[in-house]
């Protein structure tokens, strides 16, 4: 997962923005045209608004999108793990977030019960 601090996020050359699509939290990820798209940006208007987790998951799992899926908005270090598990590949941290704390969270759990985008099989289907 590419964790981006806000101060570097604004420094992209305009050319980079070709192929970047913004998907609103209430938009249908299954209806999004993906041809030529290199990055889909999903928004967290508030970190407690979890719609983008479903959007990311559907883009990866059902649409088979292989480009970058980026979390923007109210992005906190404590949600990075679930973002990665839902299909996000990059995240722009809110300005006050500390990357050092992010690292610890990402490394904490070796495995989870349910399947996700990183490992589609649930735990029970892995140990047979």
């Amino acid at each position, binding site marked *: 997962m590419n964790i981006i601090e806000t101060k570097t996020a604004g420094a992209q050359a305009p050319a980079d923005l070709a192929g970047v699509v913004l998907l609103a939290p209430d938009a249908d990820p299954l209806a999004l045209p993906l041809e030529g798209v290199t990055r889909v940006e999903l928004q967290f208007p508030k970190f407690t608004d979890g719609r983008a987790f479903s959007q990311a998951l559907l883009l990866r799992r059902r649409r088979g999108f292989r480009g970058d899926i980026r979390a923007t908005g109210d992005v906190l270090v404590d949600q990075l793990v679930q973002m990665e598990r839902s299909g996000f590949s990059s995240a722009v941290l809110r300005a006050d977030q500390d990357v050092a704390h992010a690292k610890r969270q990402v490394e904490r759990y070796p495995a989870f019960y*349910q399947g996700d985008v990183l490992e589609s099989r649930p735990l029970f289907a892995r140990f047979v």
Partner: protein
Amino acid sequence: MYQYTEFDRQFVKLRAAQYRDQLERNLAGQLGDDEFRPLRLQNGWYIQRYAPMLRIAVPYGEISSRQLRVLARIAREYDQPDAQLFHQAQQTQDGLGAVPVPGGGQVGSRLKVGYGHITTRLNVQFNWIPLVRSADVMDLLASVDMHGIQTSGNTIRNIATDALAGIAVDEIADPRPFCEILRQWSTLHPEFAFLPRKFKISINGAQEDRAAIGWYDVGLQLLRSDAGALGFKVLVGGGMGRTPIIGTVVRPFLPWDQLLNYLEAVIRVYNRYGRRDNAWKARIKILVKAEGQRYIDQVEEEYRQIVELDGGAHTITQAEFDRVAANFAPPALPRREHSGEDAVLRTAAQADAEYGRWLARNVKPHRDPQLRAVTLSFKRIGQAPGDATGEQLDLAAELADRFSAGEARTTHEQNLLLPWVHADDLPALWHAARKAGLARPNIGLLTDMIACPGGDFCSLANARSLPIAEAIMQRYQDLDELYDIGEIDLHMSGCINSCGHHHSGHIGILGVDKDGKEWYQVTLGGADGSDLSGPAQPGKVVGPSFSAAEVPEVVDALLETYRGLRQSVDGKPETFLATLRRVGIDPFKAAANAARLNEQQVA
């Protein structure tokens, strides 16, 4: 009981460590209170009126004696505020005044420390643990495979079921393996940790609905198809709160192995469309009510795609079901010679009326004819419904060890149930439970009431529940009278969040706020879905709300009206609810209104 695997154990320990990390960042000023709030909530830590409250998960109500002893230790060593805080809290509560007990005396707020509180959703809460010690408590809990994961927050909460799961005589299939499979699937689910609102699931495995499935976000009824296949009837969109709604059947029959795939669809559609602009309209019930068939169609289509396009990775395998189900095999109890217990019991019951009552009310039949399920009553004078001191938790653990293979269950009615008691042990258990103060023979009767902690602890409450509960408890201490009133569900909530399930009470009492004072709305005829109550439905409001002082009088008046109007059916008196349904609400309304203090004064 489910035995934790090494993975389960490690997982809970990592969760405790993660919580400590978050707490330390918060205390160091590196994690703001707003950002810390959902993290602590997802571990069961609320901030209440005077102190933090910890809600500990008891998955589907199963708890071991070892775990009860750790709860006892938490009660004694951690549920202890400093003297000044406690004094201040008691003084503030005293300012709210006292509630008169019909017939004499009065009851005010009497705050206690050093106890756990059994909730209607089978969890256990503590009220006085300082936040700085919260991470230590999580470590202690993890040492006995316990935690507070997703006991709060807008997540999938602790799965509920029938306290008689796996032992009931009318069971279709044991719901506990499915409860456990759901526990694992929902724990730290990456997609569903920030839903529009909290999400509660209940599973019933018996003929009788003892799990209130109509009242849940998702209610699951185990059943067999005509061909004998096991599956679920799936209800979605039930709930209490400001808008009480009974769940809609979205699937009459779902094969058991599709449970996780189907719930993924149910919750994903909710996550997308559930309202996020207004917390009062954010529960799934509002979405299902607003969208009706369109919601069901979307779920079915999403489910189809999960299975057909995504590959249905969470289809439950027979091997996994068998692995989990093996945990719930009955404990190996020493078989005994049948002692002709029935005759022994009858003789003893005739000799001691209270023992006879205890057998009739607190002891239930068991699938194994040699065994019984015994409820320890946590409804007694001087203690709030469901409260258990450290000493009582230790005593309950001892009773579980001596009489019930070390296992107990928390119940929806805020008691503890011992599921594996040999019939021959009933006299010994009766004596031991009575000595412990846990043998009050009132299960299913008026004083076995449900009440939330209310305005004595909860920052959401509009009014106090506990002094009202205590006033009613004191008024109805006479067992002859209590038995004459018969089976009745009295449910009390301190606010519209409905933690005390007032909507499903035959008599429901709801705290409301009017001009900053405590008032109470009374409802009649609610039902949780049990055989006694009939199909789940909300009660009807009796009229304008009553003052705190009036409420015990109103309850008194309602019960008097019932006793005056009831008929005998097959030589047995009708229940309160049967009379209410037969004659209608009007005479009860009139009696309740006549109990208003100003009307009495006018008259």
